[in-house]
């Protein structure tokens, strides 16, 4: 029995009349690379945003290491109108709606579809700032340099992390001055700086050519092994998905249409229909 790191149970996210994620259940096991794929507008990023606390799902439960981290139901805080599947299932249970920083503190780090580095900061500071959350200091000890040892430790760790990611030579440059591929890599490095157990990658290979995509795939496997990570990613590059992921979930119009190993998914007629239209 593999150990669940992340489990979504009947997660639904409704915006007005649009059901972006519809009754989605999936699980990610420890040490796996799991991909979430689907056509444009299928609700992949919305599902990510539900996990990371950006959105409050309309219904459903999300567990991290078997512990409920997000929970909501139609009668909950939002009082949203929702009568879809499993609408009554969680009524009466307590709702949990954490903010993104609380989710990150639990050990779930993410990257963004459109790179969101801190523009005015150097490469080094981008990674160093991500270490702020776990540092043991308060505003006075940090300002008056009482916790100087902590600051020094953060800097050393950042330097080590950048060296591992081959980014150390750019440490003093502004993050936005890096070429596109390196910005993606820096965003992953920044996410790693928060000491995650689960890494959510939102289209890490967007805008990359086949060679860069291949390198990125190997890079993901490499950091996964090195930091004992579990990786859950959204991706459109099928070569990356098929070659490097252990299991794949396919969603379309917010609904799960297929799951399984790359071979199973590739052969599934529903997936082909979703991508190419019914022939």
């Amino acid at each position, binding site marked *: 029995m593999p150990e669940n790191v992340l489990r979504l149970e009947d997660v639904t996210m409704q915006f007005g009349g649009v059901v972006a994620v519809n009754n989605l259940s999936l699980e990610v096991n420890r040490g796996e690379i799991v991909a979430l794929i689907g056509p444009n507008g299928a609700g992949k990023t919305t599902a990510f945003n539900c996990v990371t606390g950006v959105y409050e799902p309309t219904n459903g439960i999300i567990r991290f290491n078997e512990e409920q981290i997000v929970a909501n139901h139609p009668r909950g805080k939002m009082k949203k109108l929702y009568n879809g599947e499993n609408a009554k299932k969680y009524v009466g249970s307590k709702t949990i709606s954490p903010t993104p920083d609380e989710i990150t503190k639990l050990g779930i780090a993410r990257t963004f579809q459109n790179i969101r580095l801190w523009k005015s900061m150097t490469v080094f500071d981008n990674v160093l700032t991500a270490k*702020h959350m776990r540092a043991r200091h308060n505003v006075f000890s940090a*300002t008056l340099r009482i916790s100087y040892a902590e*600051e020094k430790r953060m800097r050393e760790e950042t330097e080590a992390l950048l060296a591992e990611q081959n980014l150390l030579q750019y440490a003093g440059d502004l993050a936005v001055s890096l070429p596109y591929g390196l910005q993606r890599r820096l965003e992953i490095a920044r996410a790693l700086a928060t000491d995650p157990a689960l890494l959510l990658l939102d289209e890490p290979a967007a805008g990359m050519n086949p060679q860069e995509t291949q390198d990125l795939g190997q890079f993901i496997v490499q950091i996964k092994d090195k930091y004992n990570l579990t990786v859950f990613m959204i991706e459109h590059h099928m070569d990356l998905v098929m070659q490097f992921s252990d299991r794949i979930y396919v969603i379309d119009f917010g609904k799960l249409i297929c799951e399984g190993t790359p071979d199973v998914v590739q052969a599934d007629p529903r997936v082909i229909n979703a991508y190419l239209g019914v022939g």
Partner: protein
Amino acid sequence: MGKKNKTELWIALVAIALVYIVVIILEQTMSPGNILFTVLKKGAIYSLVAVSMNLLNGFTGLFSLGQAGFMLIGAYTYAILTMPVAVKLSDQVYKYYDCIIHFDTGILVGLICAGIAAAVFAALIGLPVLRLKSDYLAIATLGFAEIIRAIFQWNTLGPVTNGANVMREYKDLTSVVIPIINVRIPPTLFVFIVAGLCIAFIVLLINSSYGRAFKAIRDDEIAAEAMGINLFRHKQMSFVISSFFAGISGALLAMFQYTVVASQFKSAMTYEILLIVVIGGIGSISGSCIASFLYIALSEWWLRGLDMGKFLGIDAPGIFRSGFRRFIFSIIIMVIVLFFSRGLMGDKELSFRWLAKKLRRKRSGEAAAKGGGPNA
């Protein structure tokens, strides 16, 4: 990298020490009534409040316009606390009310309490207000500043705040004495010391881990949140710290002016400070300091003649009459904004890198010469 920074730091420290030495010398040699001291004192006070506003607007990305309100709280807290009990009980100041505060404190306690009072208010106001973003935050903070002013002028609070009447007879800059050894600190030096310490704290804060978190929030809130930075807590922290120093600068302003009245802390004052921050460069501490001294020097000193009929030796009472100064001043500001659209300093700091480089080159040259000596 480390060594280069160290040289720069030393040069900066020496430069700051020089400024203080110059202030001490000036104060020993020139008559205290000289306009220069007015400019220096007021400039230092405005530097502090501009830097505190820059911490919010420039480094945390919170466009807040409540600075005058917090200065008012600081000024009044200071005035009420340090006014001698005898004055409070007589009808010198509290003419229409019976003052209900029957104690007084020293200057240092008064200053710190001024900051704390402003910070406490900021923490309360921050709870609802900091959930707003950009322009809405500016409007809300501006509104709260006006409310604070109205409250301090309120008749019912008269026994504490003296209503809308002037506060005076509290401890001003002429009565700053170091306890025990009984040495008088000259007024300008005292303002420079307090403002300098406060600005130093803000600079240290900005360069600490928390400062980086503030900048992260300014650059990209969503990314900051996703990297585990608690938005509300950090915004609140920045707001409270900024208000603390605004409160202290309000108290210094009260000390400098000898009298203080709530109606002077209008939103126009906030705009004045905002102007200094924008001219100096949003996100530049040294820019704010330079701009505030320039601003005060221009408006209080260099352009004074434009109002008095005489300017740069030209005698033209027909043109140079009351109000002309404002006209010229506006043009200067427009020129600055047109040609330095990101402020005098942009988001850079005053840098001594060139000097550091020169020094290092010289030193390495000397070392090379020394090293070469025995061989030759």
